[in-house]
Structure formats: structure tokens, C-alpha cells
């Protein structure tokens, strides 16, 4: 049972950090990451809040690296750039 408790409580701790991060992120951090989030509604930020909880680590990493919204690459985009 100990292994199960370690897994479950580790996830709880990760998610608890995620809740705190998500609260900060949807109010302040989101516009640093994506310009299209500037001036968005409470409803939009409420929806984003729930995703920011499990993915807080990835968002924090992108914010710390100063990364902006990327454009997806595919064979045509790559070849056009050559």
C-alpha cells in the first residue's frame, strides 16, 4: 500500500502546486506567454485555469525561457524556409 500512497500523495502535491501556479498564471502569466490572451474575459481564463493545474510545469518552463507562442512546422513550412 505504501507505493500507492507515495504515488497518490505525490500527485496531490504536484496538483496543489499547480493550483497556486494556475491562479497566478491566469491573472498575470498568461499574457507574457501569448499576446492573444491580452484583454481576454474571465470566462476564458476560468477555462484555462483547469488546464494550467496539471501542465503548470510546462508553462513555467516556457515562461522562464521567455518563449512565445510557436508556429507549428511541417514539410512545406520547413522547405519554404530553405
Amino acid at each position: 500500500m505504501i507505493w500507492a500512497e507515495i504515488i497518490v500523495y505525490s500527485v496531490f502535491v504536484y496538483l496543489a502546486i499547480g493550483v497556486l501556479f494556475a491562479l497566478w498564471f491566469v491573472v498575470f502569466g498568461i499574457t507574457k506567454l501569448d499576446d492573444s490572451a491580452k484583454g481576454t474575459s474571465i470566462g476564458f481564463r476560468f477555462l484555462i485555469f483547469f488546464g494550467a493545474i496539471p501542465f503548470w510545469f510546462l508553462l513555467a518552463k516556457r515562461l522562464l525561457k521567455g518563449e512565445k507562442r510557436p508556429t507549428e512546422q511541417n514539410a512545406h513550412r520547413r522547405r519554404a524556409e530553405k
Partner: protein
Amino acid sequence: MSEKYVAISWNRQKKIYDALLWSGVAVYLLLFIGLGSFLQPNATIETLIIRGFGTCAILLLHIVLIIGPLCRISPKFLPLLYNRRHLGVTTFLIGAVHAVFSIIQFHALGTINPIVSILVSNTKFNSIADFPFQILGLIALIILFLMAVTSHDFWLNNLTAPIWKTLHTLVYVAYALLIGHVALGVLQSETSPILAILLGIGLVLVVGLHLISAFKETDLDKEIVSVDEFVEACTVAEIPEKRACIRTISGERVAIFKYDGKISAVSNVCQHQNGPLGEGKIGDDGCITCPWHGFQYLPETGASPPPFTEKVPTFNVKIEDGKVFVKAKPNKAGTRVEPAKI
């Protein structure tokens, strides 16, 4: 289309879609629980809720999974695809109700944490009849949760496309886990074969339609020799007016549109979720409209009309003897190209 995010960009079509979806769910649950309480008077309301929401969730997941291949087989099904994300979120919410009631009923009355209880209360992994099927359901629900909370376009843009797509491809893992959850769970105690037959039909539909659609698209992915010169792609006559002929050039599909006596070619891949632009059409506004979510591009420039900022690569085209030639090397996304005159 991008510019400023909104919570949900409602329009008439989405409202009708959601109204039909939620009223369908409500009717199913009312019928299931109502008839269940009549046909199985010994079943408690909690049990009927668990069964009703569980069967509803797996039914919705089947619909979610067959919409994609159905649309590739016939464009008639595209209206189902338009708001599929709401269908997916609804599937998670219905599954979550099933899970919450199941946890309360079977795991909340002990002294250990209910989630820990799911993991340790049954460890007969080598038994079919007593397999700990609830763990399969729990993992599937976590996947559906992660998909539901990242269904907004913000997440596609900011998780980066490879992570977002990998995450959303996990729906097939969730589906396999749920088939196991049902087969090793409720089917082990079910005396009637009806549920097993329905589950089998669902599985055959999901697998069969995916195979048929993959087979149908095999020809589209045959690569035309990709040097940087012009390559023969199709004839003018092959392209329906205001629509496209799709060919694979330079490692990806190209959509070659015919409209108003002109031919233009753009990359087939919509900047939003990689929708198939070549399966869309050119409307009265002169824009190519992606059939998946309505993103628009001008055929001459591959750019969305202002104020939107999406762009796709364009291709130089020429016509000789009724044949359309496309230059294999794409232009940078949003580059204006003079259409070939027919």
C-alpha cells in the same frame, strides 16, 4: 480564428450542436435510469446512476472516435466534426460523474484514501474474472481529463503542437483501457449478452471505419517527384469549381483550387489543428474555408483575411495543354502568388 481568445466562440451552428448533444444525453440518462428503476426494482439510485452515466460516456466516446474517419470517408459528416471538442468535454464530464459515484459507493467508506483504495483494494492482476478493472477506468478518466482541460485553442498554441497532438492521440489508449474496464468489469457479472454484443459492434465500427478511411486516403499520399521544378499535378478538368484537387508534393499534401477562371495552390495543412484545406471550398467572400473549424485563407496569398494572422505556404502554378503544373518548392507562408489563368 486567432486574434483575441474567447471562452467559447458561440455561433448558431454550435448552439444547435450543443442543444442536440445535451438534450440527447439528458434523454438517454432519464430513459436509462427511469426504465432501470422499473425493470430492476432492487437496484439503488446510486447503482443506476453509475450504470447510466458509465454507458452514456462510453457511447459518447464511440461517437467521438468514429466522427474523424466518417468525415474522411464522406464530407457529409463534417457538421459532426465542427464542434467535436464539446462532445469530448461532455464525454469526460459524464465519465467523471460515473467515477465520482463509483468511488463514493465502493471506496469512500473505508479508512484509507479513496484513490489509494482503488489502487490497492484488488490486486488480482492475473485473474480475468476478478481483474482490478477500476484502475483501467481511473487511468482512462485521467487521460480524458487532460484532453478536456486542454481542448481550447490556447493549449494547442502554447503546449506546442507535438505535445498537444501526442496528448490528444492518447484518446485511443483511453478507449482501449475503457474496453478493458467494461469487459473485465461489468461484463464479468452480466448474464445477458446484449452489452457484450453492443460493445463488440462499437469496437468493430471504430476499428473498421479507421481502416476504411486510411485505405481511402492511401492514393492521396502517393508522392509526386519532389524536385524544385514544376511537376504535373492534375488536369484543370479534374478540379471542381470553387473546390480543390489534392496531391502530395514536397512531403505534404497540396490543395490546388479552381475558382473564377483561375488556379491557385496552397499547402493543404490549416494552421489551426492541421485541418484539410483541400476538402474545404471557396465561398462568396473569395476565401478558402477549412472544413474542420472554419478558419479562412485567401487562395492567392495563403493568408487569413485581416485582422486574422494565420498563414499557409503557397505554390507557383502554371497551366499547359489543360494540365496543371505546381512548383515543388513551396513559398513562405503568406507569399502572394499570381494565379494561373485558365
